[in-house]
């Protein structure tokens, strides 16, 4: 609910946006909020670029024949869609944008522990993105985002090293963000902000940071070895000269499985914030939700072999990985149950962020449960490398993570910009996204069980019906993402002034102005209550 004052077109109270002007004040900033904005812009660009590739893929898949583009081009489309979406959108998204902006504020700090390293992480991200983009522009990569050897190390004729460099460099951006968060959360909490009072968004980012710091170096060295092998024909992964291609898969998935938890955990953190605010009630089972984030981070490192059940891995290793993959589902389930229980006897608002939260609960449930199909050994043998897997991970990544990101952006937009977005259009877009998403990806479960393999440019005719549905859905989904982009831009100039706390939410970030001042708080807050203490009388808004 916005508190619209007498329609001033500009916000004149001093805040981080009007503190300084000029490109230098942005490109050399040390303010975590400005860096977050820089990241928002960058990942939005990469999202739409990845989305264009997705659109091209779905366009080609309207017909069973490969008639839109040739095979090599199609192979480049899905590779670049994957690389851009995974490494340049999903991995940085919430931590580098909403996390950067709000983790310091939520703990009552003036900034992250290392502001200059924060800025450096953005520059490193940009350099990585430039490598990836130059790979695209020079002609593309066609190895799949998974870079399996020996195809990527010996056979592919595309710009593998350039793309791998991009990912390698972007990895360091991720590591630095994680490092910054860990130190900040440990050392810079305001007085009274104990671990047990941290907002769950902070817990989620903390767990994510642990994974970023421990896992990313492994993929860095793996891709470095692929690059070296490609350049020098060493034989690390090429069996013709003594190497082991399955070693690559082990090393790659050792990072890339935890990476999917890097992608989803921050989204789960956003969910906790949304569900509590729009149920106006503290989360059910705070300790369990917090612990489940850490649990997912730890167990997530132990399950990578479930990507490799049909590679000829030892039967006993397969057993172990299958069992642990079921175990890692438990903490995720706990979260879903706890959020649902939070709504019980709450005061539910249908504001747009909450609509995205509803969508997340539903779609992540389906996505997570279909993960169990993949953890089940005998079923995985049939559905791995088919569209079933594609549907599964899009349900959790897009139906889960991107919905959480959209929900978070809508929730915190007024705080970041001081402006409200138009609620009617926002609700409409949320609906489009939900409908479009399900239309796009549900048919892919069926097509996958039927046997449609992944990464196929042309496919057997009996799969066509599902592909047509899927492409139709993708169009709706695309529109559902474009409309928010438009109205967010519009709101910057014409949106109503939001006021300090339009949602009447709990949390230190809402205790300060919208947009916040450069140093976040006039005085360091002292925390005396639990997180989400909605039942206590709402604090007076601080002036100015």
């Amino acid at each position: 609910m916005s508190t619209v004052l007498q329609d001033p077109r500009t916000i004149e109270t001093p805040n981080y946006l009007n503190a300084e002007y000029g490109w230098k004040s942005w490109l050399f900033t040390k303010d975590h909020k400005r860096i977050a904005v820089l990241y928002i812009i960058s990942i939005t660009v990469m999202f739409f670029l990845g989305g264009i590739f997705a659109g091209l893929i779905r366009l080609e898949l309207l017909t069973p024949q490969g008639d839109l583009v040739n095979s090599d081009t199609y192979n480049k489309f899905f590779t670049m869609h994957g690389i851009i979406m995974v490494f340049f959108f999903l991995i940085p998204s919430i931590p580098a944008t909403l996390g950067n902006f709000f983790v310091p504020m939520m703990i009552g700090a003036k900034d992250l522990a290392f502001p200059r390293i924060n800025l450096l992480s953005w520059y490193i991200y940009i350099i990585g993105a430039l490598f990836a983009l130059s790979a695209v522009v020079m002609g593309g990569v066609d190895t799949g985002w998974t870079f399996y050897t020996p195809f990527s190390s010996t056979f592919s004729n595309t710009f593998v090293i350039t793309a791998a460099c991009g990912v390698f460099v972007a990895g360091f951006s991720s590591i630095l963000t994680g490092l910054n968060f860990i130190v900040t959360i440990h050392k810079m909490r305001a007085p009274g902000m104990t671990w047990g009072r941290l907002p769950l968004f902070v817990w989620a980012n903390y767990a994510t940071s642990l994974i970023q710091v421990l896992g990313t170096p492994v993929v860095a060295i793996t891709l470095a070895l692929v690059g070296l092998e490609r350049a020098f024909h060493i034989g690390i992964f090429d069996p013709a000269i003594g190497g082991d291609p399955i070693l690559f898969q082990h090393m790659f998935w050792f990072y890339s499985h935890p990476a999917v938890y890097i992608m989803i955990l921050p989204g789960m953190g956003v969910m906790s914030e949304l569900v509590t605010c729009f149920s106006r009630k503290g989360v059910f089972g705070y300790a369990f939700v917090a612990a489940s984030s850490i649990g997912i981070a730890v167990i997530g490192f132990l399950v990578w072999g479930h990507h490799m059940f049909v590679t000829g891995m030892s039967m006993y290793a397969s057993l172990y990985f299958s069992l642990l993959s079921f175990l890692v589902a438990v903490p995720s389930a706990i979260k879903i149950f706890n959020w649902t229980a939070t709504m019980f006897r709450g005061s539910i608002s249908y504001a747009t962020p909450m609509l995205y939260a509803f969508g997340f609960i539903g779609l992540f449930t389906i996505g997570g449960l279909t993960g169990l199909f993949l953890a089940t050994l005998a079923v995985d043998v049939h559905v791995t490398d088919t569209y079933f897997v594609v549907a599964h991970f899009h349900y959790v990544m897009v139906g889960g993570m991107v919905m959480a990101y959209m929900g978070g952006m809508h929730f915190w937009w007024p705080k970041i910009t001081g402006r409200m977005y138009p609620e009617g259009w926002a609700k409409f877009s949320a609906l489009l996204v939900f409908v479009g998403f399900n239309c796009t990806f549900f048919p892919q479960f069926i097509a996958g069980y039927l046997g449609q393999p992944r990464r196929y440019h042309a496919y057997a005719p009996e799969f066509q019906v599902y592909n047509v549905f899927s492409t139709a859905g993708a169009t709706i989904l695309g529109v559902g993402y474009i409309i928010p982009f438009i109205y967010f831009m519009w709101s910057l100039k014409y949106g109503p002034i939001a006021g300090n706390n339009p949602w009447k939410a709990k949390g230190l970030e809402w205790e300060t102005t919208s947009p916040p001042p450069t140093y976040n708080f006039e005085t360091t807050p002292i925390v005396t209550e639990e997180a989400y203490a909605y039942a206590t009388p709402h604090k007076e808004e601080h002036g100015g």
Partner: protein
Amino acid sequence: MVLPWGGLPKTMQIPLFPESASTTADSVDYLYYYLTAVTVVMTTLIFAAVFIFAIKYRRRSEDEIPAPIHGSIRLEIAWSVIPFLIMLTFFWWGAQLFFANASPPADAMDVYAVGKQWMWKIQYPEGQREINELHVPVGRPVKVTLASEDVIHSFFIPAFRLKHDVVPGRYDTMWFNATKPGRYHLFCAEYCGTEHSGMVGWVTVMTEPDYENWLANGGAEGTMVQQGERLFGQYGCVTCHQLDQQGRGPMLRGVYGSRIQLNDGKTILADDAFIRESILNPNAKIVAGYKSDVMPSFQGQISEEGLLQLIVYIKSLAITKAPGTVAAPGTEGKQ
């Protein structure tokens, strides 16, 4: 299972499941139904809860503050343990089926499939060779030995609910027992480059009489044993590996399937992988009593298909024991 639009062209049909044509397909499907049922139930429960709560507890006034509910350890334990126990049933059933599918029965017939960018080359012991076509009899276990000439591929037959990656540098095996005559898709399921989606074919399951007929129009080049024997001579193997006496190299009669003692004291089973390695990288394992660096490597000279033919030939060498002639002097004889 096909929804009732069977008369339409394929591109307009809405099938839900592939045909079920192997002994394991139905079992996998039942497990899948079970998983789907639990998923539907869980999803419905969650959707319903969210839906009902969203309506029943919708915000009626701006100032309302609901009473806090901090949590319930009992509930947390319940909804952690119960789902995990249900998941253990998935795990157990899936693992059982997986193990059952892992080892081929002893009487399985052999077929050899070599994946190469971008085709499947199938060889039968009787000598037929096919590209992208696999013919098998109904009701008999078939063991496919998989090899790759270049990158990782994956041998996928949806109607059998089976696939296995084909990894270069080694052999993988997959077995099935087809239950229904018909023609079923064969797909490569591991991205392998430009024509990955063109690396498709057909598995034709035939009744026994039809299969015998088909076999009778055998391979023009002779059986795999004969082809292997030809290679054995062509590459000079017979010079050192004489058939009935020791030469510079170990005699190969009766070797396949036996346990061999190596010069470092270890014993190893002489299976397909051992023979392949001995041809491509002979110094990796030396039989006790023999010297290293005598046999040249044939890496890059013999194709994967050729290697399979040689292996089938060596396998065929009958076990006729003559005293003391099988293994190197002074070492344990094979078993």
